[in-house]
Structure formats: structure tokens, C-alpha cells
């Protein structure tokens, strides 16, 4: 029997209504409230405990409530945490979301709950939990609990999931490649989608673009008073590629000293980038990092000073999220040296 822990609020935990919403977290043995209906539908799993907490207590003493609940979880064996269902109740959605997030992020316990699409908790917590698409009021309790039980049984059995839509939960911001069961070709899918679009019939895109994503450039700065760092996505590395920077799909960056150099000579530096002809860079690495020119600009007073390292990754095929993370890491690193502006060299 796999141990499952349930979470409910004071109302569904049968402590009381609005007057008991300040109820502090309590750990109760066994299944309480809707968790009993959930227990009845679980296979080879037992709800060993139910955590009950007042919605107002969670909202107004969030940190304290979560610390108490973390204290419970630390002591217990738990394969899955099931919270709610929370319907369209905003405060309850917040409570369920916070507890699911705590279970997953601090204890790596998979967590699931159920909310109506109108519940603000969906957008806040969908990346931290499986949030099933639930009804807007407790009138839908029976169906919501059944849906939670079905997904819980799958997760507990380690069965592969079919995707957010097929399983009935809100996508967690994770995109995964799947081989279609019917092996329907991309050709057939594309032409059928085109015919639907031409006829004005509904169709479902397989890749949803929600918004245009542009970075507006900042106003110009006066570099003569600033400390500048040079960052490049060109894959420029010392010959021999000591840190094994990949030719595509970077997940890490490297930095190399240039403080004591005036130039980068042929043979000393190469590019490992897999998306352009790196022969030119092998002949003259300064096409990627114009070090001689940068140093001259420093001497001429056009640039205040130059940070003694350059930072590099390979732009080719690097995923956007990784790029954003690496940019933040690099910015944090150069800030330690009071760098105020960055020149981002392109390739």
C-alpha cells in the first residue's frame, strides 16, 4: 500500500465554516472529508493522514502555515499529496496550490489538486502541481474526486501519462515529444488542418503561440564612464576546448581571461559553434571578440574599463529558457566586478 496524504480546508475538514477559517494546520490520521471518497477509489494506496487548515490562516500566515505543514511532511512517508478539490474558491485554490508546491518543491512529492479554470490558483500553481480541470462549485465534487482518483492511480502506478489534455489537467509548462498512437503522419495532420482553416471550421494547433515576444532595446549608454564586459554566443574557446563547450544546445557557459592580453591569435582560440563556418574564426579569432579594438577604445577613453574575462556559450540550437537562465547567471557574475554594461557579440 502506497501512502498518500490529503489536504483539505476547515470547511471540508468538517471543522466549521467561515467562523473557523483561522484554524491552524492540524494533522489527522486517516482520510477526512472528501479524502474519504478519494480513498474509496484509490488502488493499492492508503490515505494515511489528512492535513486540515483554515483558508484565512493560510492566507494571512502563509509562511507559518507552510512551516507547520512541512514539519508534518518531514516526518511522514508519502508517495503522493492530494489537495482539494478547490472548485472556483479563490482562497482554497491558493491554499491547495501552496501546499502542492511545498510538497513538490521541497520534498519532491508529486502533488495533485483540482480547480475550476476560473480559479486564480490555476495560473499561479500549474507549474508546481497536476491541477485537474474541475467544476466551479462543490456540486461537481463527485466527478472532481473521481478525476483526481484516476490520475492519482496512474501516478502511483508509474503509468506513462498521455498529456495534459488527455488526462484532464492544466498543462504544467512542460512540452514533451510523443509518438502518436495511431502514427498519423505530419503530412495528413497538416493538410487536414489546412482544409479546416480554409473552410472556417475549428481546428487545434499543435504549437500555441500566445504572444509575440520581443525585447525592447534600452536607451544608449555612455561607455566612457562604464565598466564593460564582453559576452558572446559564438562558441569562442581556447584551443582544445578545455570546458567541453558543445557545438549546439548549450546548457552552460564558460569564461576566459583576457585581462592580460592585447590580441587573440590564430591557433590560440577556436570556435566550436555548429551553426556557421568557423573557418574564418580559426584564421582570426578576433572576428568574434575584437579584443585589439576593445583595448584601444579603453586607451582612447571611449570605454571606461574592461572586465578581465569574456563570457561565452554556443548560441546554436540553445533553448530559449536555458539562454535566459545563463544570461542571468552571467549578469550576476559580472556584477560582482561592478560591471555596468555588456557588449553582446553576435555571430
Amino acid at each position, binding site marked *: 500500500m502506497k501512502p498518500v496524504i490529503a489536504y483539505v480546508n476547515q470547511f471540508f475538514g468538517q471543522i466549521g465554516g467561515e467562523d473557523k477559517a483561522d484554524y491552524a494546520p492540524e494533522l489527522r490520521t486517516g482520510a477526512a472529508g472528501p479524502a474519504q471518497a478519494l480513498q474509496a477509489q484509490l488502488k493499492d494506496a492508503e490515505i494515511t493522514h489528512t492535513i486540515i487548515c483554515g483558508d484565512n490562516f493560510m492566507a494571512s500566515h502563509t509562511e507559518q502555515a507552510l512551516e507547520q505543514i512541512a514539519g508534518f511532511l518531514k516526518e511522514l512517508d508519502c508517495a503522493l499529496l492530494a489537495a482539494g478539490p478547490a472548485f472556483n474558491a479563490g482562497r482554497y485554490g491558493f491554499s491547495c496550490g501552496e501546499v502542492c508546491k511545498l510538497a513538490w518543491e521541497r520534498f519532491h512529492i508529486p502533488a495533485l489538486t483540482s480547480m475550476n479554470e476560473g480559479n486564480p490558483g490555476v495560473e499561479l500553481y500549474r507549474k508546481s502541481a497536476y491541477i485537474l480541470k474541475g467544476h466551479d462549485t462543490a456540486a461537481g465534487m463527485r466527478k472532481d474526486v473521481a478525476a483526481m482518483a484516476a490520475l492519482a492511480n496512474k501516478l502511483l502506478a508509474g503509468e506513462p501519462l498521455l*498529456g495534459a489534455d488527455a488526462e484532464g489537467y492544466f498543462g504544467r509548462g512542460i512540452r*514533451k515529444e510523443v509518438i502518436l498512437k495511431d502514427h498519423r503522419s505530419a503530412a495528413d495532420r497538416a493538410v487536414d488542418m489546412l482544409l479546416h482553416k480554409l473552410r472556417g471550421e475549428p481546428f487545434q494547433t499543435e*504549437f500555441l503561440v500566445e504572444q509575440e515576444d520581443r525585447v525592447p532595446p534600452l536607451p544608449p549608454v555612455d561607455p566612457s564612464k562604464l565598466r564593460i564586459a564582453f559576452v558572446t554566443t559564438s562558441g569562442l574557446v581556447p584551443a582544445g576546448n578545455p570546458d567541453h563547450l558543445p557545438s549546439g544546445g548549450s546548457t552552460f557557459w564558460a569564461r576566459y581571461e583576457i585581462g592580460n592580453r592585447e590580441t587573440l591569435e590564430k591557433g590560440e582560440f577556436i570556435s566550436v559553434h555548429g551553426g556557421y563556418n568557423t573557418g574564418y574564426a580559426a584564421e582570426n579569432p578576433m572576428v568574434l571578440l575584437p579584443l585589439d579594438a576593445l583595448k584601444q577604445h579603453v586607451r582612447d577613453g571611449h570605454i571606461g574599463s574592461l572586465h578581465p574575462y569574456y563570457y561565452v556559450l554556443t548560441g546554436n540550437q540553445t533553448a530559449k529558457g536555458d539562454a535566459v537562465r545563463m544570461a542571468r547567471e552571467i549578469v550576476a557574475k559580472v556584477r560582482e566586478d561592478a560591471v555596468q554594461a555588456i557588449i553582446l557579440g553576435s555571430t
Partner: protein
Amino acid sequence: MKLDIGTFHVKDIRFGDQTSYAGGVLTVNREEAAAVLNRDGALKKVRLEIARPGESVRIIPIKAAVEPRFRPDGRAMFPGYTGPAAFAGEGVTYALKGMSVLGVGCRSINGMNAMLDMSGPGAEQSYFSQLNQLIFLAENADPGEDNIRQENQNFVRAAHVLAEYLAAAVKDLEPEAWEHYDWADVSEQHLPRVAFLQQQCNIPNWIHGCSYYGYDLTGVPTTLVKPLESLDGALTGDRGSLPGNAVRTTYSYLNAPLVKRLLAEHGKTLDFVGILMTGHIEPIDQKKQYAHIIVSAATSLHLDAAIYMESHCGNVDVDYMMTMAALEDAGIKTVGILAENNGRDGRNPGKTYADPKANAIVSTGNTCEVYELPPMDVVYGNLNTIGQELYWGAWRDDAVCGPSLRKDGSLIVDAHMFLDHDGLLGWSDKTVKDF
């Protein structure tokens, strides 16, 4: 315009005295075939091998993939490339189905080569695993050509020559079956006018996406190609490079499922007016120019709708999304077909740049999906190129995954490694879903 492809289904390949075909078995004279494919002496140490679906075989680095084809009327199969200029896409062509020719080297200096597993989890990632493979292994005769720009070209040419030589074995035989294609003028039916736009990854002196009648389309913003020409050897892929996704193989052009499906709809639900090969270019101002040129070509074809294939992921996302939005602005209802780059954890947005006007898209996979692959009993080529050479989908070491190549020959790589993993010409039976 009519094209009749007489087909012979190759159930097995064997080596023997005379290159011939009988009862579903292609017999190949190993020495003669090696001499023919290397008739210009550009390669050395040429050796042929056979791999069959389900075998414990791994092939790397693959530089070319071609279906054996032959024209009984004497025209070159790949006009302008393996022989003199002639029109393709009409008349009679013979094809050996169920097999492919693979050109394989022992190095991959520019990393623009692919891998194929004939069994195991890797086999699911490439339709080529379902085909019998006649592999030739070789090295460039002139080591001076082992550079990032030239290293693949002799292999690619030799693969086309070998494909034509093999299919000539059926020149006096009656085809087992026929594929009949008729690309008639159906304009009087006033059906929606549809074109298939294909973005090519071509960067001068680096990646050469494809050639049309042997003419390199690198740097050419638009080229109009007849659908039947694509199925009949006018388009040759992988002229200079072939990673797992960015460049199409000649095999893929010859059998493109999207072209076949659009031809099946031609005269019924739509008027398939042609294929528009479109370029990709790096500077942002020129991307805008290209988008205008492509939309101008689309509007001069009076298109009502288009299917628009993206070449791969990354820099090309900008060209692609700008063009797609401009097509929609011009009133051309467009469906995109692309692969996503969601990163290893799937938490990346998929495209470096996107536009909400691109509202109808078929996704063929995640190019960064990570796969663990067991060792194979036989490796054709050079497995040690993994970790040494600059493949997009393999690494020498990694903080999370470790080295791609492990001591026992097992691998951890991403989807860029697999031969046409993305299947963007309509092959892919994969998609990407929210989890």
C-alpha cells in the same frame, strides 16, 4: 503533367556475383558497386555493407541517403547532378522501394552528419530504420577535403551515383506495381489555390540545404518547383551537410509525404499550384527583405492558402515567423509545420521568436529530447566521432548527462543525432504535447 513510377519492392539485399534483382531480392556485386560509386576516384577505402530493419546495427556518421532510381529512357536520374540537364517529373521512372543507400564516413569534422539505429529505442526516431540499407563506407581520397566545408560532398555525389547504378538492375524488368501521378491543370474548378513552401537552411560556405537540377539554392530567396519534380529527382538534398534535422535528404524529397498528400487532394479539395523553395538569411534587414520576396511570390501565384515548413530551430525562427505573419497579413491562410526546441526539461518555449498570427501549426517533435540508447552489436562508420566531433546532439561531457559516448558503447544523445528525426516533409508520427 504525368509521372509514372514503376516500383520494385526490395525485401532483402545480398552480395553476389552480378548486380541484379529477382523476387524481391537485390543482389549487389560488392566490388563493381564500389568501383562505380567511386568512378571519379574522389574516395578511398570504399567498402559496402548491408543493414536490415531490426538488426542490432548503429550507423554513424551518415552523410547522404538516396532511394535507388533509374530512368529507362536514358535521362539522368538526377539531371544536372549525376548527368546532363533534362526535365524531371514526367515520363517513366523506376524505383527500388523499401531500401535506401547511405553514404557513411569515418569523420564528421563539421558535425553536420546523422546517426541511424536499426533497432531499439533509437529506431523509433527515424523512418529510415524501417528500410533495408545498402551502406558504403569510405574516406576522402584527398585529406585536404577533410574540412568543414567540403568533407561531405564526395559522399553525397557517390550516394546518388550508387543509387542510379543499383536501380539500373531493373531496367529490363516489368515493374511489380505502379504509382501514377497526374498534376493536371484544374484551374477551371476554382478550388482554393495552395502551395507548399519549404524553408531551406542554407548559409554560404557552410550549410547547403538543397539543389534544384544540380543548381545550389544557397542564397536564393525563392524558387518555384513543380510537385512531380520533387518526387522525381530534380531536388537533391544534403549536398554538403546532413544533421538530424536541418537538411532534407534526397530520399525524403523523392518520397515527401506532404507532396503526395497534396497531390491526392489536387483537383478534389484544392488546387496544388506548386512547391516554393524559400531561403533563410542571417542579417535582420535581409530577413525582412526575404519575407517580402517570399510573400510577393506567394501572392503572384494567387494563393489562397499555404503549408509552410520550417527548416529547423534557432536563427531561422525569426525568418520563419516573420514570413508566416506576413503571409497571413496578405490573406493567405497558412499552416506551419515545424519542430520545437523545448530544451531537455521541456520547459522552454519552443521557438526563439514567435508571432501569434502563426495560429495553425503541426509540431513534429522536440529537437532537444534526450534519449538513452543501448550499445549495438555492430557499428558501421565510427562511433568515436561522438564526443570528438561537433555534432549538434552529442557532447564530450555534461554536468547532468555525462559524456554522450559511454565505455560500453551505449549513448545519451539528443534528437539532433537521428537521421531526419524531425520528418518535416510530413514523415513524422510524433508531436509535442503539454504535460
